[in-house]
């Protein structure tokens, strides 16, 4: 399936654009990756004694894989609500720059802020990555509707995956459970690497991985924030230096 040309009548209504967004779910390998990741989250929720409704509500209202995994594992391992909330808040900081960078792709001069609230909610790593790929192919005034369709499609896939994973969990061996959990870092690593086109992105990714174990030795409680800001700032420095030289 290819998206219609920018001047096609297929983009004449927001509903058609929503439909194209929904159908675009079938055009990305990340849908399979998400399905498997959320299969894992459903299984993890089952094994840590959360209800199916809880798992589905976390997907609907949190809508951030890493945050959901951190929430389930910390609560499941006996952390307090406050400790879990801090860990999740820190992991969710990356949503801020994602929202900041993705919303301008959809905005027109007349767009009201409230029209972007649902798109902001749907923003998570997969949508962020796919927006940069798909949105240049979508007329600007239809991008919000397109993103709503794409996001609703992805959420639906994940809700199904949660349910399947939850019911499979009872039958998964320890090794298969580990294999499903390993899918999360692998898929996030490679999908981020594939979309790192600029040197700054590559530096941020590599340094972010290398610096985390060092930052974790500080046990500051905000290790990911420390390594992220340091690695990201160095990456920006590299970008700036190359710009100045050019």
């Amino acid at each position: 399936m290819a998206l219609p040309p920018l001047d096609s009548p297929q983009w004449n209504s927001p509903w058609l654009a929503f439909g194209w967004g929904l159908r675009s779910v079938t055009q990305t390998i990340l849908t399979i990756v998400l399905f498997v990741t959320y299969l894992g989250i459903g299984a993890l929720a089952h094994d840590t004694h959360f209800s199916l409704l809880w798992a589905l509500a976390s997907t609907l209202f949190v809508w951030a894989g890493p945050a959901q995994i951190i929430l389930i594992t910390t609560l499941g391992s006996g952390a307090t609500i406050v400790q879990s909330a801090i860990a999740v808040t820190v992991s969710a900081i990356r949503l801020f720059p994602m929202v900041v960078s993705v919303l301008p792709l959809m905005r027109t001069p007349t767009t009201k802020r409230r029209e972007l609230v649902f798109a902001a909610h749907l923003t998570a790593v997969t949508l962020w990555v796919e927006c940069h790929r798909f949105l240049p192919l979508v007329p600007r005034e239809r991008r919000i509707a397109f993103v709503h369709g794409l996001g609703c499609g992805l959420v639906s896939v994940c809700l199904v995956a949660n349910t399947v994973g939850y019911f499979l969990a009872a039958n998964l061996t320890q090794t298969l459970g580990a294999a499903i959990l390993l899918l999360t870092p692998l898929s996030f690593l490679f999908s981020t690497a594939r979309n790192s086109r600029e040197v700054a992105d590559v530096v941020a990714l590599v340094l972010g991985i290398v610096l985390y174990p060092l930052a974790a030795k500080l046990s500051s409680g905000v290790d990911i924030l420390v390594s992220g800001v340091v690695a990201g700032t160095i990456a920006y420095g590299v970008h700036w230096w190359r710009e100045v030289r050019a």
Partner: protein
Amino acid sequence: MSSAQLIGDWHALAVLFVAGVVPNQIWRMLGLWFGGGIDEGSELLVWVRAVATAILAGVIAQIVVEPPGALAGVPDSLRYGAVAAGLVVFLLTRRSIFAGVVTGEVFMLAGKWWLG
């Protein structure tokens, strides 16, 4: 499966709201609020995107270095080896996410099987 397993209790859902929903939505809504005046190609955005990428990289490292749940039962060398093997194949296949993920998984499962 009982209704307790399917629905659970309201306390757990309240915890989800406080520790899961609020911490995520705060950042999204702050992004919505402060992102308004920022230009797509601005230098601030380049920095902010680099930090976002690095924080996600940190989450990836954290899951591998301090693994949750069943993954903790896999030896360190197998986890690191799986990521390294996946990365090599990912790069050799001109950035195929699928090839990288499958290689990492096969490496880990084969290692688990070989170690017994």
